[in-house]
């Protein structure tokens, strides 16, 4: 690491034990950097556990506004002895390690090429606070104080932030401030401060907010006018529903009667959750659910019914690591295929792929419009990285002229003017039939069924009648192609392209900037919806070689592209990252360079191969194999094929 100019450009990683309250310290650090006008990103790598397992929090400070993981760590805050060994290993050469020197560990933590900073956090807190829980909590705030000294953070700004959190509890404000001061003063007295890694005031965060994608999506549901929310708790989607409820309890209470202008139903399982959404949407309410991979598996049958019987629904899939239960608190893009083709028979579903919380907000609103306009389920395919981490995004905008697109729902007047209503005709030629709502007029009644039906809505086993409806659904799919969000394209003229999706976007964009600086120009397309539009087809056709960067093992996006476009499979090269941690820009850079500068005809896909993690001191082989900055696979690992 060159420490010459790391002002506003470095990554801090904080290793603690979950359940000890480090989240508030980390948020405090993030916000104080953000309020200094410096772009910042935070990612939480937490265990599926309530208390006692290792947890990490990564804060990237980036003057250039990059919000992906860089792939290196310059400052490690090692507070969990169980993970000391791997935390020390992960630090970049020339980096800094802050640890709790109440229990000195000179041997374990030493490495020739790093600087170790020992602050006796526990000792300071034990001397100044009483009560076991308070001491543990304050130890975290104390390291925030130490970091404030090392990074040159504004202590008054930290006080203001604590004031916003503990405004009504002055004792808590004072004890937190005391802990900050303890860490700050000790560090400044014993070490040269600030470090070459430090924060200097900028003005690059104006007009931005720090928010997670689940909160943003929930807000989108409130603004889109959703009234029925049904769900079954599952990580990492739960916070979306919690946020919806919280916003509704603030924004949707009838001021006169206290009545709640929403129904929030905790279902018995995901089978019921999606059923409730379909029942409510069929009956004219905007309804949604949020889930993760296992829930999508359970919802398959109802999603097929909704596709065939043409019932709107909005489903948020906050992807986590599969298969099966997998790693519930780690991120992946492993549901791309299962969402696109959920359920048996010929079914395809509209999917939207947000890349950050800003798009979560916008696409939540758009999902309801599309679902009702096209009378079909719309899946908003997010992931844990977007959903649960704090992202710096542009402040959301709302157009007060917006009104929901409720699609082709007949009014009473329209119904009265009809001779007879038939549910599945295609009078407008766009494949979208007209529907009616219960309770309006007896002439409008029809029978919704997942069994074979003809265009009049009646039961049928007649080959031609059945096929007529199925073919009309295909016409509707073509209409959907025109209406879903376009893919975004950046750059033109290169014969090499790269395609990514969802949360991989920030890493790819940073990687492309780094590659451009090294003379490698690549055009970029980010898929934002399924079905793919014409622009995706053109982009694939227009490049000699196309990298497909995604976060799963089986190259699911590449599969979708080969299935749904005319692209030649041989020109697609996969960059696959599926460790459960968000992809870094470095992984993309290395993968692209290995291909474009590697031996001619290498033609290999590239996979992330994290080194196996030994427990502290217990796995010598793993330790020996692991190199600092371990996200870069060794050359031998770069030559695996799918």
């Amino acid at each position, binding site marked *: 690491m060159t420490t010459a100019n790391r002002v506003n450009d470095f990554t801090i990683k904080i290793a603690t034990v979950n359940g000890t309250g480090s989240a508030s310290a980390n948020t405090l650090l993030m916000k104080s950097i953000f309020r200094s006008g410096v772009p910042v990103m935070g990612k939480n790598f937490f265990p599926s556990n309530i208390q006692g397992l290792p947890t990490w929090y990564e804060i990237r400070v980036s003057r250039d506004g990059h919000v992906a993981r860089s792939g290196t760590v310059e400052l490690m805050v090692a507070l969990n002895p169980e993970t000391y060994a791997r935390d020390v290993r992960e630090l970049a050469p020339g980096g800094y390690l802050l640890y709790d020197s109440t229990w000195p560990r000179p041997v374990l933590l030493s490495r020739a090429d790093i600087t170790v900073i020992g602050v006796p956090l526990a000792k300071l807190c034990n001397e100044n606070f009483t009560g076991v829980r308070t001491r543990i909590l304050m130890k975290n705030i104390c390291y925030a104080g130490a970091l404030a000294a090392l990074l040159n953070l504004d202590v008054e700004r930290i006080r203001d932030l604590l004031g*916003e959190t503990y405004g009504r509890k002055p004792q808590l404000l004072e004890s937190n401030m005391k802990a900050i001061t303890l860490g700050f003063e000790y560090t400044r007295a014993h070490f040269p401060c600030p470090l070459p890694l430090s924060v200097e005031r900028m003005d690059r965060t104006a007009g931005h*907010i*720090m*928010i997670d994608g689940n909160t943003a999506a929930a*807000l989108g549901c*409130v*603004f*889109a*006018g959703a*009234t*029925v929310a*049904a769900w079954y708790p599952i990580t990492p989607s739960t916070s979306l529903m919690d946020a919806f409820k919280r916003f509704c309890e603030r*924004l949707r209470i*009838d001021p006169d009667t206290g*009545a*709640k*202008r*929403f*129904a929030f*139903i905790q*279902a*018995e*399982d995901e*089978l*019921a*959750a*999606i*059923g*409730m*959404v*379909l*029942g*409510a949407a*069929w*009956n004219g*309410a905007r309804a949604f659910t949020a889930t993760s991979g296992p829930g999508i598996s359970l919802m398959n*049958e*109802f999603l097929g*019914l909704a596709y065939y019987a043409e019932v709107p629904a909005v489903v948020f899939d906050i992807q986590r690591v599969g298969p099966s239960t997998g790693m519930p608190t780690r991120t992946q893009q492993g549901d791309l295929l299962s969402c696109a083709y959920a359920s048996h028979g010929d079914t395809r579903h509209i999917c939207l792929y947000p890349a950050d919380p800003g798009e979560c907000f916008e696409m939540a609103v758009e999902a309801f419009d599309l679902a009702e306009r096209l009378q079909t389920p719309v899946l908003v395919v997010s992931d844990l990285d977007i959903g649960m981490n704090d992202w710096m995004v542009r402040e*959301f*905008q*709302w*157009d*007060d002229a*917006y009104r929901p697109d409720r699609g082709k729902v007949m009014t009473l007047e329209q119904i009265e003017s009809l001779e007879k209503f038939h549910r599945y005709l295609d009078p407008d030629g766009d494949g979208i039939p007209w529907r*009616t*709502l*219960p*309770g309006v*007029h*007896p*002439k*409008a*009644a029809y*029978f*919704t*069924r997942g*069994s074979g039906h003809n265009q009049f809505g*009646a*039961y049928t086993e007649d080959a031609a009648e059945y096929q007529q409806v199925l073919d009309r659904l295909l016409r509707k799919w073509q209409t959907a192609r025109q209406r879903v969000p376009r893919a975004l394209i950046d750059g033109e003229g290169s014969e090499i392209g790269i395609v990514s999706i969802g949360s991989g976007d920030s890493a790819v964009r940073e990687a492309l900037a780094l590659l451009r600086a090294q003379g490698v120009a690549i055009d970029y397309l980010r898929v934002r919806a399924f079905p793919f539009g014409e622009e995706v087809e053109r982009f694939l056709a227009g490049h000699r070689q196309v990298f497909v960067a995604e976060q799963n093992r089986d190259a699911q996006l590449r599969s979708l592209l080969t299935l749904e476009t005319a692209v030649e499979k041989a020109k697609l090269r996969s960059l696959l990252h599926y460790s459960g941690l968000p992809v870094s820009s470095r992984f993309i850079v290395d993968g692209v360079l290995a291909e474009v500068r590697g031996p001619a005809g290498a033609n290999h896909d590239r996979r992330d191969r994290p080194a196996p993690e030994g427990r502290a001191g217990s796995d010598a082989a793993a330790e020996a194999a692991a190199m600092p900055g371990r996200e870069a696979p060794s050359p031998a690992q770069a030559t695996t094929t799918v």
Partner: protein
Amino acid sequence: MTFIAKPKVTHPSLPHNALGLTRRAYEGVLSTLCAGCGHDSITAAIVEACWRLSLEPQNLVKLSGIGCSSKTTAYFVSGAHGFNAVHGRMASIATGANAANRRLSYIGVSGDGDTLSIGLGQFCHAIRRNLDMLYIIENNGVYGLTKGQFSASADIGSRAKKGETNRQPPIDPVLLALDLGAPFVARSFSGDKRQLVPLIEAGLKHGGFALIDVLSPCVTFNDHEGSTKSYAYTREHYEPAVLADFVPREQPISVDYPPGEAREIALHDGSRIVLRKIGADYDPTDRAAADAAVQARGGSGEYLTGLIYLDAAGRHPEFHQVNATPEAPLNSLPFEQLSPGSAGLRTVLARYR
């Protein structure tokens, strides 16, 4: 046979209800079930009950799952929307539909396979939520469409058409519903229209979850000697415990009831159920006693029928009361009441800056 249009001929002498509609207005398409199927009698009872109640056809919502019973929602009230859900999951569709519009009447028709096996969880949770709906189980002890397998309601010792004897204990939906706190629990027989029609009327008007488990023999797969769900067995072994009459709001109580033997229970819309005891020892408003009576009869192969339990005290709040939703249906709320607008957004986002 649904492709044959059912002729809508209205004889001028047919009686009209308060809406001026004849029973024909409450019929649906032609049934495709086997001739003599108990389910068709239940369909006729539903038609009769809806006509007597003078329900606006469009204000009824018909829901079902998969199976012979679930087909029947197409055979009544063609002016009502119907939703034929996936197998065993009608209850969740009903929950969402009811959440969206609390003003309509919801009738779910299911079978013993649909409710007691694949749909057992959703059935239990609809009861737990006290969803305002009438849930009818057309109970024949077998899977008809897949040709005669035992269902979970088959009694121990009951013999299948092909000779196999059932050795697993049945799940009794009535006992289950009592246990889960359902406020309205009835059992009836497809062959007893006099008992069944008022139960359906009362179940539709009752403002919470109403269950009617209707014994409905399967003439093709479970109507033989040795079956405990055949017409012959059911006629011999069923015992009405209590007579329930439904009295609409407009109609005064008839003076025919002997004093002391009739008990009147008002429903939320002003209509009433009049309960008349048959056995002197039976109190249909005592849940523990009702449970004991059903258990006792079950042991001896008897079916206790009628309005077995009615929660006269209204102990459990209904779904919308729990959720504190407004009187106006959620699907009718104006957008301005739902979306806080750009000023609202700025306020919300202040804490994320």
